[in-house]
C-alpha cells in the first residue's frame, strides 16, 4: 500500500523548467552559463579579429628578445643584453621586496599607533589621531610623490659630501651615508668566501645562490635546534623537580659561538660606503625610489592598521583587562599578554586585506620610477615591444597570483591562531 504522502508520479513537462523549484535553479544556471559563454566568446572573437586587423597575433616570442634597457635596482644579475623575461623577473622581485618590507613596517607602526591612540596621554593620543586621519584621507599616490619630493629636496646630494669643508657628513661614525640618491649602509663581505652556485645555467631564470648564506643558515638552524633541545630538557627538569635550571647562558653560547666561529672562518667584515667619483660606492645602496615608496606605503597602510588594531583592542571586553589588573599585571604586560592575543582574532582578517592593498598599491611605484613589475613588464617592455595585450594580461596574472598567495598564507595563519585560541 502506498502512503498518502507519496506525491503522484508526475510526467516531466517543459513548463516545469520554469515553475518547479527543483528544475528552475538548473534552468537559471544553464542560462547564466550560456550568457557567460556568449559574452566570453564575443570578447574573444572581437579580440582575435582586432588583432588580425592590426597584424599582431598573440605571441610571447618577444620575451626572449634582449630588453636593451637597464634597471637600477636588481637583486639578480642583469644587463641590458638580457631578455625581457629576465627584466620582468627582476621587476617581480622588486615588487616583492617593497611589499614585504612595507608589510613589516606597516604592521609595526600600525600596532604602535593603534595602541598609542588609546594612550592616557592626551597629547600623544591626539597626535596619533591626527596622523591616522591625515594619511587615511589623502590619496596614497599623493603620499608617494610627496615622500619622494621630501627625500629629494631635504637630503644632501653626494656633491655636498665633497670638498675640504663639506656641507654634509656621513652618519654613525662614518658608516652610513644619507643622500638624496638614497641611503648607503655597510654591507657584509667575506674575504674567504665559499663562492656561489649558479643555478639554471644560462636561462632567463638563472640565479646564484651564495654558499656563505647557506652555511650561515645551516649553522643557525642547528643552533636553534640545539637550543630547543636544551630548553626542552630544562622543561623536563622543571616538571620533575619544580626547579628550572638556569640555561640562558647555555642558550646564548649555543647561538653565538658556532656563528662567530663560522664568521671568522669566512673572513667576515663590513664594507663601508665611500665617496668615489660621482657617487658613493661600496655598501648597500637603498635607492630613493625604494625608500619613498616603502615609507609612503607603510605609513599609509599603517594608518589603516592602526584603526583595525584600535578597534580590536576596544572589542576585548573591559573585564579582561580588569581581571588582568587584579592579578597584579602591569599595564604593558596586560596589553602584551591579555589584550593583544585576544584582539588578534579580530585583527587578522582585516589585516589580510590591508596587506593585499599594500601589495597592490606598490604598483604605483611607477610614479617615483621604482622599477617594479609594473615598471618593467607593464612599462618599458610594453612600450618598446608594443605588445599591450600580452603584457597587461600577464601583469594581471602575476598580481593575482601574489594576492592569492598572500591571502592563502594569511588565512592559514588565521586558522592556526583561532585553533590556538580555543
Amino acid at each position, binding site marked *: 500500500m502506498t502512503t498518502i504522502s507519496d506525491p503522484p508520479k508526475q510526467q516531466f513537462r517543459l513548463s516545469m523548467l520554469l515553475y518547479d523549484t527543483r528544475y528552475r535553479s538548473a534552468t537559471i544556471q544553464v542560462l*547564466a552559463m550560456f550568457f557567460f559563454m556568449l559574452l566570453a566568446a564575443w570578447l574573444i572573437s572581437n*579580440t582575435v579579429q582586432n588583432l588580425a586587423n592590426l597584424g599582431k597575433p598573440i605571441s610571447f616570442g618577444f620575451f626572449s628578445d634582449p630588453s636593451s634597457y637597464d634597471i637600477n635596482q636588481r637583486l639578480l644579475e642583469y644587463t641590458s643584453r638580457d631578455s625581457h623575461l629576465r627584466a620582468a623577473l627582476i621587476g617581480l622581485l622588486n615588487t616583492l621586496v617593497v611589499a614585504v618590507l612595507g608589510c613589516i613596517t606597516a604592521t609595526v607602526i600600525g600596532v604602535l599607533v593603534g595602541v598609542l591612540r588609546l594612550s592616557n596621554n592626551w597629547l600623544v593620543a591626539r597626535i596619533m589621531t591626527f596622523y591616522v586621519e591625515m594619511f587615511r584621507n589623502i590619496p596614497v599616490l599623493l603620499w608617494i610623490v610627496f615622500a619622494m619630493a621630501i627625500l629629494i629636496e631635504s637630503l644632501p646630494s653626494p656633491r655636498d659630501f665633497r670638498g675640504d669643508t663639506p656641507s654634509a657628513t656621513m652618519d654613525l661614525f662614518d658608516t652610513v651615508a644619507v643622500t638624496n640618491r638614497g641611503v648607503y649602509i655597510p654591507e657584509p663581505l667575506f674575504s674567504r668566501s665559499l663562492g656561489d652556485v649558479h643555478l639554471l645555467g644560462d636561462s632567463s631564470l638563472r640565479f646564484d645562490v651564495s654558499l656563505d648564506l647557506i652555511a650561515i643558515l645551516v649553522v643557525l638552524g642547528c643552533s636553534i635546534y640545539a637550543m630547543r633541545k636544551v630548553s626542552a630538557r630544562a622543561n623536563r627538569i622543571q616538571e620533575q623537580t619544580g626547579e628550572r635550571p638556569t640555561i640562558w647562558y647555555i642558550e646564548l653560547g649555543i647561538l653565538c659561538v658556532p656563528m662567530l666561529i663560522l664568521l671568522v672562518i669566512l673572513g667576515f667584515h663590513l664594507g663601508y660606503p665611500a665617496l668615489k667619483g660621482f657617487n658613493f660606492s661600496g655598501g648597500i645602496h637603498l635607492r630613493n625610489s625604494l625608500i619613498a615608496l616603502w615609507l609612503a606605503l607603510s605609513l599609509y597602510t599603517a594608518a589603516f592598521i592602526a584603526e583595525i588594531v584600535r578597534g580590536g583592542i576596544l572589542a576585548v571586553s573591559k573585564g579582561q583587562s580588569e581581571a588582568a589588573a587584579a592579578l597584579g599585571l602591569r599595564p604593558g604586560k596586560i596589553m602584551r599578554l591579555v589584550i593583544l592575543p585576544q584582539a588578534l582574532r579580530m585583527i587578522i582578517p582585516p589585516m589580510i586585506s590591508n596587506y593585499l592593498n599594500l601589495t597592490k598599491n606598490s604598483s604605483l611605484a611607477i610614479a617615483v620610477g621604482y622599477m617594479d613589475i609594473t615598471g618593467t613588464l607593464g612599462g618599458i617592455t610594453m612600450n618598446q615591444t608594443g605588445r*599591450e595585450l600580452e603584457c597587461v594580461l600577464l601583469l594581471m596574472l602575476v598580481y593575482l597570483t601574489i594576492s592569492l598567495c598572500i591571502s592563502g598564507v594569511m588565512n592559514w595563519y588565521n586558522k592556526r591562531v583561532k585553533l590556538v585560541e580555543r
Partner: protein
Amino acid sequence: MSDTHAETVTFVRDTMLPEKEPPLSTVGAIGWVRDNLFSGVLNSILTILSLGFIYYVLSGILPWVFQSVWNADSLTECREIMVATWGDTHGHACWGVIKDRWLQLFYGFYPPYPAHPDANFGSAPDGHWWPAYFRPNLALILLIGAMIPVLFSGAPRKLLYLTAAYPFILPWLLWGGSVWVPLMVAAGFAIGYFAYVLVDRSMSSLMATIAAVLLAILWWVFAVGPVSGALHSILNIGIAPVQSREFGGYMLAIILGVVAIGCSLPLGILMALGRQSDLFIVKTLCVGFIEFIRGVPLITLLFVASLLLNYFLPPGTNFDLILRVMIMMTLFAAAYMAEVIRGGLAALPKGQYEGADSLGLNYWQAQRLIIMPQALKISIPGIVNTFIGIFKDTTLVSIIGLFDVIGLASAIRADTAWNGIYWELFAFIGALFFVVCFSMSRYSMYLERKLRTGHR
C-alpha cells in the same frame, strides 16, 4: 533604651556639611594637565617629546604657508617678490600658482559657458544670465540634494524623487546634448518594468525578469538613438554638448567616484546575491569575478581601459577614454561593493529570511521588501568607506594620461611660467582630498554609532 542612647552621644550633626571644593591640583586646567599629560614619568617624557615634535613641524610649516606670495603670474615673478620681501626664496610658498590655476584644478578644461566655447571665465558672453561653470556646479548641488535622503533618515522623503532622477540629470547636465536622450534612456527602465509586470501576470517571475532585461537592453541598443533623434527633430530641447575629454581636475575625481559608486551599487547587489546563492554556477562566476577584480591593482584595470578595451570590443568601436575608465572603475567598485553588501546580508539574523519565506514571498519579493532594505541600511557605512577609497583611487587616472588634479599638476609644472613648482600644488591637492574624505569618514563614523545604538 533610646533615651539612654541619646544621652551617651554628646553630639549628633543634623545638617549636611557644605561640599568642599576638590583640591586645586585635581580640577581645572591644572588637574586636567596632571591627569592627561604628566601622570607619570613616562607620560611626562612622551608629552615633552610630543610638544617638541609639534613645535618642530609647525615652525617649519607655518612660516612657509603664511609668509607667502599670492600675487604672481609665474614662478620667476614669485621668486623676485620673495627676494625683494624676505631676502631669500627658501621657506616661502608661492600660492600664485593656485590663484592662477585654481579654476583649472577644479574644473579641468570644462568650458565655463559651454554654448560659447571660446568665452573665458572672466568674460561672460552677451545674454548669459547664469554664472560660469553653472552646469557642473548645479550638478554638484543636485548631487548633495539627491544624497541627503539616502544619508540622513530625518530628511524629507520627497527628495527621494530627486535621487531617482539624478542618474539621468547628471550626464545630461555635464555632457549636454538633447534632453530626449536621458528621457529615452529612463524610458528603458519603464519599459522593463512594464514588461516585468505584464509577463509576471501571465507567466513565471523568472520569465518576467528575463523578458524585462532583454526588452530594456534591446530598447537601449536599438531604439534610443533613432527615437530620441526623431523626437529631437520634432522638438529641439537641448543644451550645448561638452566633450568628455574636456572634463578634468577635481571635478573629474568627483564624477568618476560618483559614477563608479552609483553604477556599481546595483551590480554589487546582484553579485552579492549571486555569491550568497546556492546556485553553483552563478556563485562560481560571481566569486571568480569578485576575487579577480580584488586581486589585481586598479592601475592594471586602468591599463585595460586605456590600452585593451578597444581590442575587446568589435572592430571600429571607439569611445573615449573617460567612458572606458568609468566602465573599469565601475567594475572595480562593484567587486568591493559586493563584499560590503555581502557583509550586510550576513549580518541579518536568519529569522528575517525564514520570516520572509513563511510569508510566502518569492525570492525577489523577499529581497526587495525584507532583506535589502535592512541589509543596505547596515551597509551604508561600508559603502561610504568604499566611496572614499574609490574617490582617492581616482587619482590613478593621471597615470594613463587623464587630467585629474594630479595630471593637471604635472601639466602646470610643464608650463614655462610654473616650471619647477610642486609643494604648493601638492599641498593644495592634498587639502582638497582631505576635506572631502575626512567629512565623509566622519559621517560614516556617525552612522556607525547611530546604527549600533539602534541594535542594542
